[in-house]
């Protein structure tokens, strides 16, 4: 009974919260209360899920009582449980942050309801065990992201939002096309069943490699990989900071999760080819992200290009897909979700206080906001992966596994990218907090206690995550096993058949 209800709470609870908000009508204060309470419940439930999975191994529920491989399954393995927990923590703090920053007009137009629908889609994409269902959940969170990116209808938002919608629409159509190919090749849609069929098939699997490239095209667009990231910086810079933080912390990571999941389960026959392609693209992604991060002084843009660097680093780990590589990629994925959200919220506080996004026009803020400044400093160090902060462990494992597999260029690029990240963030830090004092009269008198609370809490969580990385190692080892040993993911089918 418990295992029946538990897996569906992360999907259904945000949906119900959104429906209740729609029922309540345009009353922002009630929306805030519902979003905060629901977010807290979700954190508790998903934390319990992590504990439950750690104790009992992964568990599965069959929707509608249809047994796999015919029905839709909801599979909670360690990867999904950890990702859902991180997502709910981030969404909770971003909703608290937006109490003071998003503004009444947007709140009235169901901002929180849209965030909750997006949470439904993201959690669903993490938890589902059916590849077509994953497409449906992708569409759920993409639809709400289309609304969020254009909510408010500022002059900059609309054309950038249109580009974002168009790019994602085309890639979603390719997703359907890839699903069609995959279905015609394997004759099933259940991910575990598909893994077993492909693993036991002994014939020619060249067709699957073509399907792999279609899937890579789709997920690379969503994740912002090298040739297909060009839509990302401008589209993400258009909406206000809370929405930007949501997108930057969560949406690209769902694309990465999908790449890791599909390429570990389905496209395992021509590993040399697929992993080489992903590795080369990941390295190029890091390099192009570095160029962008160095080129801009705009705070939003610097951190947006840092997303692209992080995408590349995580994908280096998933491209190698051995034990150390997957563990490192999992560590870095979680670290990056937390610290990116924290950094976006921190620059959000600065932007709301000063009304400027260009770091060159600011200076000397440390005299007014010492806490904010040092928190930003710690977050920057953590992002760059200075030990013992959270970015270090992920990069350690990734570089270790790259060196073990004689991929020296990838290892060197990952290491050098840390320097670029550190330089770009510290340049922002020095411009904003040190240097010549700006005109402090220009500071806007805004209430910012909730904004500060959520930004600093996220940094604290990221730091604690970094310090307790050793303690959490068993969880991540368990999570990474789903990737480098895909048979463990599909083992639940053996009990059914």
């Amino acid at each position, binding site marked *: 009974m418990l295992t029946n209800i538990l897996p569906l709470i992360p999907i259904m609870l945000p949906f119900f919260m959104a429906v209740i908000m729609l029922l309540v009508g345009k009353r922002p204060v009630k929306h805030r209360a519902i979003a905060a309470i629901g977010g807290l419940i979700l954190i508790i439930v998903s934390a319990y899920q992590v504990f439950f999975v750690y104790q009992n191994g992964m568990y599965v529920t069959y929707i509608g009582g249809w047994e796999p491989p015919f029905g839709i399954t909801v599979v909670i393995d360690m990867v999904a449980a950890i990702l859902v927990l991180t997502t709910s923590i981030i969404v909770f703090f971003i909703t608290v942050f937006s109490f003071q920053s998003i503004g009444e007009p947007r709140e009235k137009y169901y901002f929180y309801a849209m965030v909750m629908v997006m949470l439904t889609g993201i959690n669903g994409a993490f938890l589902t065990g059916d590849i077509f269902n994953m497409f*449906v959940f992708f569409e759920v969170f993409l639809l709400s992201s289309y609304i969020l990116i254009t909510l408010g209808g500022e002059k900059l938002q609309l054309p950038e939002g249109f580009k974002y919608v168009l790019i994602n629409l*085309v890639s979603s159509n390719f997703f359907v096309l890839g699903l069609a190919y995959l279905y015609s090749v394997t004759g099933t849609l259940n991910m575990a069943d598909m893994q077993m069929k492909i693993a036991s098939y002994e014939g020619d699997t060249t067709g699957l490699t073509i399907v792999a490239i279609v899937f890579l095209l789709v997920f690379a667009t969503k994740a912002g990989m090298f040739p297909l990231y060009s839509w990302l910086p401008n589209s993400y810079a258009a909406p206000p900071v809370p929405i930007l933080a949501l997108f930057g912390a969560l949406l690209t990571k769902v694309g990465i999760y999908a790449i890791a999941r599909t390429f570990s389960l389905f496209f395992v026959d021509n590993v040399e080819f697929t992993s080489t392609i992903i590795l080369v693209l990941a390295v190029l992604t890091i390099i192009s992200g570095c160029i962008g991060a160095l080129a801009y002084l705009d705070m939003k843009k610097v951190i947006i290009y840092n997303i692209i660097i992080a995408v590349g680093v995580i994908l280096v780990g998933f491209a190698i897909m051995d034990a150390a590589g997957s563990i490192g990629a999992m560590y870095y994925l979680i670290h990056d979700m937390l610290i990116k959200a924290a950094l976006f919220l921190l620059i959000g506080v600065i932007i709301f206080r000063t009304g400027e996004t260009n770091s060159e026009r600011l200076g000397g803020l440390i005299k007014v906001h010492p806490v904010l400044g040092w928190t930003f400093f710690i977050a920057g160090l953590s992002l760059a992966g200075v030990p013992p902060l959270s970015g270090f462990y992920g990069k350690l494992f990734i570089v270790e596994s790259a060196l073990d597999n004689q991929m020296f260029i990838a290892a060197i690029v990952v290491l050098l990218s840390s320097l670029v990240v550190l330089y770009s963030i510290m340049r922002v830090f020095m411009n904003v907090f040190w240097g010549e004092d700006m005109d402090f009269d220009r500071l806007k008198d805004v209430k910012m206690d909730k904004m500060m609370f959520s930004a600093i809490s996220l940094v604290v969580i990221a730091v604690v995550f970094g310090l307790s990385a050793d303690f959490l190692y068993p969880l991540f080892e368990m999570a990474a096993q789903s990737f480098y040993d895909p048979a463990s993911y599909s083992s639940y089918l053996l009990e059914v058949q």
Partner: protein
Amino acid sequence: MELITIILAGILMGAAAYLMLSKNLIRIIFGTAIFSHGVHLMFLTMGELKRGAVPVLDENVEAYADPLPQALILTAIVIAFALTAIILVLALRIYKELGTNDIEKMKGDPYAD
């Protein structure tokens, strides 16, 4: 039969690509709609056309057509419907706010400096 539908899907996608590369917002939206039609047609072809009877349980029928692609296409059509609605409203808002439906005239990156 399969060959014909595949060619038809290809023609639709080609037309969609042509429309999506134009500058007019409305043409782009029609392009996305036609693109999704091409993809759905391709999906239908992947489920093997004309093999067996309608997938409704019947005593006299031995072989059934594969119902799964049809169910999936139905889902995909519903999603494409919602997307088209959203993108149409968005295009209308853009036309109202910016006074143009030409992609070229919407340029302008305020972060360029």
